[in-house]
């Protein structure tokens, strides 16, 4: 029995373990530093926390880049660091970077306590990174919880605002529910296979399904436990990915949360959830216990269709983007269903484009919110393009990218995942998805119509800050940070549409290390 007890750390293994979590550790370190600023009133009130957070994220990106190419496993297989993580860490850190950039104005406008705000965002980023890197079921659960706790706090951050509090509460209750599903699922999986480590589960299953011929008898008992475990686990993750039947928290949480946080949730959390799902999918789901692709097929179709219909009906920009993010989750899922190296790489590429178009759209929403429009009804956007030509042009481009029009990253991403699905023979799925994109174009276009083509009657509605103002202090500040965020998003959205090869290579590199696990 002694071999069960792990040996004392060798220095080498400790070093390796530490090395494998350096990017997360750096973010956490800066989160603490930012948090300690609150002790010093004068420092806390200046912009230090903002810059420190940006520097922290930049440092972390630096470490990721420095470590890239290595293949590290740390803490007895709890976390791994390889090409897959490099890609997703950079994606998550960029999403966090953009969130911090756009937060400053918003915080000043709403007079929110800020060192804590940035600190929790940093904690959230590190949680996402842990989630992506985690390689056993306990780590997945813990880091998912960590991520969720951060997002609950941030969602309810506008104190005294009923909608924000309501959003946080709903999110908390449904999120806890999801976590319960997740842990219930893990228990079943553990009961079936007796391992918590994803790689061990993978090898165990592979031995059973491809190994000796007498495998059927072993599988017969285990199969049910495993499949119910995987189903429940998927439900837990589907909450975070906001796929259709598990989406209920999404519109309210997105709508009520402070807009930078909405952006953070729509990009960071979604990416992290998809990334961990993809990893587990490749390692466990893909080994035929039951055909999960059929279930995912249904989820994808439902998410796209529901998301698009609900988005068409919504009159508020933030809500519209929330529903659109549900539909987008459906599109991303198509890449996973398509499967294979091509499909996984496509999914990662789509996730990467998705960051920039969504974060960009929310950045523009924040600018609108800060300067003119207290309520974000679409009809209040009427004619805004003539007031802010650059910002509106950027918004139009983000909308087109979300709709999947060429020359933008959105098109390339969609093309990539759709062709992966066609390659695996999912013709109807792709056909439905394409019809859905045509359908979805309507509401993206609706925003552009309002911005650029005001009708006489409602042109005077816009720019009245007093009317329909629910909350917030509007001071009309547009700082360089937010403009920088818009420019970054614009640049990436365009470059990924015009010359995506570099990003595809990056995604391929990442998918390769995923598939080789």
């Amino acid at each position, binding site marked *: 029995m002694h071999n*069960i*007890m792990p040996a004392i750390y060798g220095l080498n293994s400790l070093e390796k373990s530490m090395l494998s979590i350096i990017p997360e550790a750096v973010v*956490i370190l800066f989160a603490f530093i930012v948090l300690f600023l609150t002790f010093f009133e004068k420092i806390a009130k200046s912009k230090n926390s903002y810059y420190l957070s940006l520097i922290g994220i930049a440092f972390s990106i630096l470490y990721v880049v420095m470590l890239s190419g290595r293949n590290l496993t740390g803490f*007895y297989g709890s976390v791994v660091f390889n090409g897959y993580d490099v890609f997703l860490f950079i994606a998550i850190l960029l999403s966090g970077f953009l969130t911090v950039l756009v937060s400053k104005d918003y915080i000043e406008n709403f007079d929110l306590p800020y060192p804590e705000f940035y600190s929790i965002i940093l904690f959230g980023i590190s*949680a996402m990174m842990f989630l992506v890197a985690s390689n056993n079921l*306990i780590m997945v659960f*813990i880091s998912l919880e960590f991520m969720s706790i951060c997002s609950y706090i941030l969602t309810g951050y506008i104190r005294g605002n009923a909608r924000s509090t309501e959003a946080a509460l709903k999110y908390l209750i449904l999120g806890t529910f999801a976590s319960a599903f997740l842990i219930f699922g893990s228990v079943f999986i553990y*009961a079936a296979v*007796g391992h918590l480590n994803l790689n061990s589960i993978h090898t165990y299953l592979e031995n059973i399904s491809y190994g000796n011929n007498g495998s059927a008898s072993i599988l017969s*008992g285990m199969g049910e436990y495993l499949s119910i475990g995987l189903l429940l686990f998927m439900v837990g993750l589907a909450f975070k990915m906001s796929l259709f039947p598990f989406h209920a928290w999404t519109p309210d949480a997105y709508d009520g949360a402070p807009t930078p946080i909405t952006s953070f949730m729509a990009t960071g959390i979604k990416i992290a959830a998809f990334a961990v799902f993809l990893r587990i999918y490749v390692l466990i789901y893909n080994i035929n216990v039951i055909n999960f692709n059929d279930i995912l097929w249904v989820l994808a179709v439902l998410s796209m269709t529901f998301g698009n219909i609900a988005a068409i009906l919504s009159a508020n920009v933030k809500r519209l983007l929330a529903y659109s993010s549900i539909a987008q989750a459906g599109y991303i899922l198509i890449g996973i269903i398509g499967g294979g190296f091509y499909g996984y790489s496509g999914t990662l590429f789509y996730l990467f484009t998705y960051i920039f178009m969504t974060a960009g759209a929310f950045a523009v929403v924040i600018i609108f919110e800060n300067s003119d429009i207290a309520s974000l009804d679409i009809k209040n956007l009427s004619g805004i393009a003539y007031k802010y030509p650059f910002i509106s042009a950027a918004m139009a481009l983000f909308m087109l990218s979300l709709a999947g029009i060429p020359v933008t990253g959105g098109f390339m991403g969609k093309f990539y995942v759709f062709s992966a699905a066609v390659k695996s023979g999912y013709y109807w799925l792709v056909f439905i998805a394409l019809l859905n994109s045509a359908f979805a174009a309507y509401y993206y276009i609706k925003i552009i119509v309002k911005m650029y083509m005001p009708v006489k009657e409602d042109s005077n509605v816009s720019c009245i800050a007093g009317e329909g103002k629910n909350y917030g202090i509007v001071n009309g500040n547009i700082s360089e940070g937010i403009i920088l965020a818009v420019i970054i998003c614009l640049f990436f959205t365009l470059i990924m549409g015009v010359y995506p090869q570099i990003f595809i290579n990056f995604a391929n590199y990442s998918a390769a290390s995923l598939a080789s696990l």
Partner: protein
Amino acid sequence: MEALFYIFAFIAIFSALMVISMKNPLTSALYLVLCFFALAGFYVLLDMQFLAVMQILVYAGAIMVLVVLVIMLLNISRLNAVKTDFHQKIIGIIIAIVLFGEIVIYTVNGMTKKPTGIFTHSVINKIGNTQVIGNFLFTKYTLSFEIASILLFVAIIGAYLFAKKKL
């Protein structure tokens, strides 16, 4: 042993149901304490006496006392009638029954041979209960343990942010 398991299971489910169906928050809280006790019973059955004690000390003891105290302080005697949509209730019950049925069918049809982990009675008795947990926490799951600590820290900050009147 088997009979004990079913008794504890019944108590756990029953008390959990009572927690959500009682109108008076104090009664709910007390049922929750009962639920925790039942869970502690499971741990004992699994030879995890240390966990059972922790469960009772931390959850049933410390946390629930705090909850009861808060309920007393806030003087919430009775929840006002919450508007519940009839449809929601019906749909909720149906879905719950379907899910429960599925799980039951799966488990019944599932393994005939019960799965056993590495830690059987004899092993645990040999090494010692607390040592096993300690060993795991500080070797294999150190990272999870550490992250959990940060998680709790962030949760505290969150609670502080929500609760404090003026920052």
